[in-house]
């Protein structure tokens, strides 16, 4: 067998596989919860209405007013600048360069969690939105009229964001895996990608309008915005308020392509988890075929990983669509189109649980680096010690293997419960007859159990 240069970019400590007994516990709890959900369901929808109430004008002014917006926008822009600068001028060692950890851990994995807890906090920090608004404002002041935009083709929906999400993870995991030695995506590549993405995003914003593109096509805004729908804090008509948790998710998937975004999220996390365990042999087999067929090592690896990433997306989509088809067979079902988009939001908690379970330890370890040596020495060249923390390091002993395992199982079970809750609630809204609603949920139950148990399985064979 040819040696596969798997990229373990950042992490010096990887998680031990979930032990069999805990896998069994997790799966059992999932089954019990699912049976309980079948028997103890409520009969009228409880989450379709957000029960949103304002937190008061003071909070809204403070957190949403122009000064806060400008400050956050500048901060976001500054951090984008630091990322690009560090990527271009800093060390090529990914673990010592600010750009890598900041983009792929702090932002990409941090904001989903922050969004669930605090609401859509990425929005004010979004550097491209900040630029777009500043330029739009400047244009209006000079020209005396607001910029005119092309109307966005609504049929495209959130598809640009879904494809962008796949592209981001492709760059992070697939493209960089060709690096040969045990390094991930290089800081230089990250900086170039950030510049290219900035150009593309600003062009789209100029074309379709800043807020429109943030709602439909800007990968980070759409992706983090999706997770913010799970939480309690939300903005309505420019006012900050609290709402019933999970309730805002129910209105999220009405835009076309939304299902693709959440499916892409589950698929990419699955792929990342599976490549270090479940798929390892299959990946090596296909890789060997391609090498035998005359591909170079790097090309063979990229093609192989691309195939498996696409397969993951197809498989996750297939499981969901089978569930939707199943529900369609239940008497009184709404049309397939409506069902297909109508249950997409129920996968958001699963996507979040996958992220949490797979990357919890990575974030805990890597944020120690982010706030010590990467902050004081962002270029990784040992030339600066901005905050006196350049000599800091990561304490890998901070989490025991057991702690990581329990968090992983806990996250998957909690995500499962939230997903079942949303699905059951939506069914009671779609089917007037409670019996039929419950019957339709056998299908979604099977879908959720499949995802959750697959998640547990991935953890149990990762690094095994």
């Amino acid at each position, binding site marked *: 067998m040819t040696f596969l240069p798997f990229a373990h970019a950042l992490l010096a400590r990887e998680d*031990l596989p979930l032990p*069999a007994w805990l896998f069994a516990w997790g799966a*059992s709890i999932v089954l019990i919860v699912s049976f309980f959900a079948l028997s*103890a369901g409520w009969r009228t929808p409880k989450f379709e209405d957000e029960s949103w109430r304002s937190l008061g004008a003071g909070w809204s002014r403070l957190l949403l007013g122009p000064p806060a917006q400008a400050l956050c926008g500048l901060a976001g822009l500054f951090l984008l600048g630091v990322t690009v600068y560090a990527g271009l001028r800093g060390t090529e060692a990914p673990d010592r360069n600010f750009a890598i950890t900041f983009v792929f851990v702090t932002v990409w994995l941090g904001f989903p969690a922050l969004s669930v807890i605090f609401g859509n906090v990425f929005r004010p920090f979004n550097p491209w939105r900040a630029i777009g608004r500043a330029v739009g404002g400047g244009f209006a002041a000079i020209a005396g009229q607001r910029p005119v935009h092309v109307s966005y083709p609504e049929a495209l929906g959130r598809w640009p964001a879904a494809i962008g999400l796949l592209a981001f993870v492709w760059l992070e995991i697939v493209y960089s895996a060709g690096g040969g030695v045990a390094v991930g995506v290089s800081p230089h590549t990250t900086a170039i990608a950030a510049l290219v993405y900035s150009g593309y995003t600003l062009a789209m914003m100029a074309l379709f309008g800043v807020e429109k593109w943030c709602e439909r096509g800007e990968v980070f805004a759409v992706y983090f915005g999706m997770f913010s729908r799970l939480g309690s804090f939300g903005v309505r008509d420019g006012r900050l308020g609290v709402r019933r948790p999970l309730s805002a998710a129910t209105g999220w998937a009405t835009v076309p392509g939304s299902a693709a975004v959440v499916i892409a999220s589950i698929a990419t996390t699955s792929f990342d988890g599976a490549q270090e365990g479940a798929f390892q042999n299959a990946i090596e087999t296909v890789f060997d075929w391609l090498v035998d067929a005359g591909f170079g090592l790097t090309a063979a690896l990229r093609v192989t990983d691309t195939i498996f990433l696409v397969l993951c997306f197809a498989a996750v989509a297939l499981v969901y669509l089978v569930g939707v088809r199943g529900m369609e067979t239940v008497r009184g079902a709404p049309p397939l189109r409506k069902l297909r988009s109508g249950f997409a939001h129920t996968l958001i908690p699963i996507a979040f649980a996958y992220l949490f379970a797979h990357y919890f330890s990575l974030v805990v370890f890597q944020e120690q680096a982010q706030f010590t040596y990467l902050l004081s020495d962002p270029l990784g060249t040992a030339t600066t010690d901005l905050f006196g923390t350049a000599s800091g390091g990561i304490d890998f002993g901070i989490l025991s*293997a057991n702690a990581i395992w329990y968090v992983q199982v806990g996250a998957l079970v909690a995500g499962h419960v939230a997903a079942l809750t949303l699905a059951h609630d939506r069914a009671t809204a779609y089917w007037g007859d409670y019996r039929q609603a419950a019957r339709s949920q056998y299908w979604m139950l099977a879908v959720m159990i499949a995802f959750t148990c697959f998640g547990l399985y991935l953890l149990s064979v990762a690094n095994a």
Partner: protein
Amino acid sequence: MERVLRSNTTRIALGVAAVVLAVVLFVLLKDDGGDNDTSGSGSSGAKTVAGTRAKPAKPQVPVIAIGGGKPVGGVAELSYSAGERIRFKVRSDVADEIHVHGYDLTKDVEAGGTVGFDFAATIEGVFEAELEDRGEQILELRVNP
């Protein structure tokens, strides 16, 4: 009234069935887990020295041989339980620096030389040891709880 009664009975029956199923599953699989645990540590490391846990009278220190800048016979695997001493040697035909990630230990080795590592397994998880300059992984180190 009758309908309510029936649905309650169904619920209880479903609940009981679920619990029984879960308990049966747990008992069955927990045994398997235990077996895996013991057999796992015994058979770990295909060609490196097994039985680090068994502690024989004269514990053998595994030697990882480096030939042509690569580990002979592929990446070595060593498995320990937390709290044990981790001991291994690296015999290399090339000069390089050996870096044990996570524990962040480094030692230089000369061409044709041998260096030994001896440290306590304090951090659980899966770790790599590399020939740092070549970026070549030579060892996968496992510390189980």
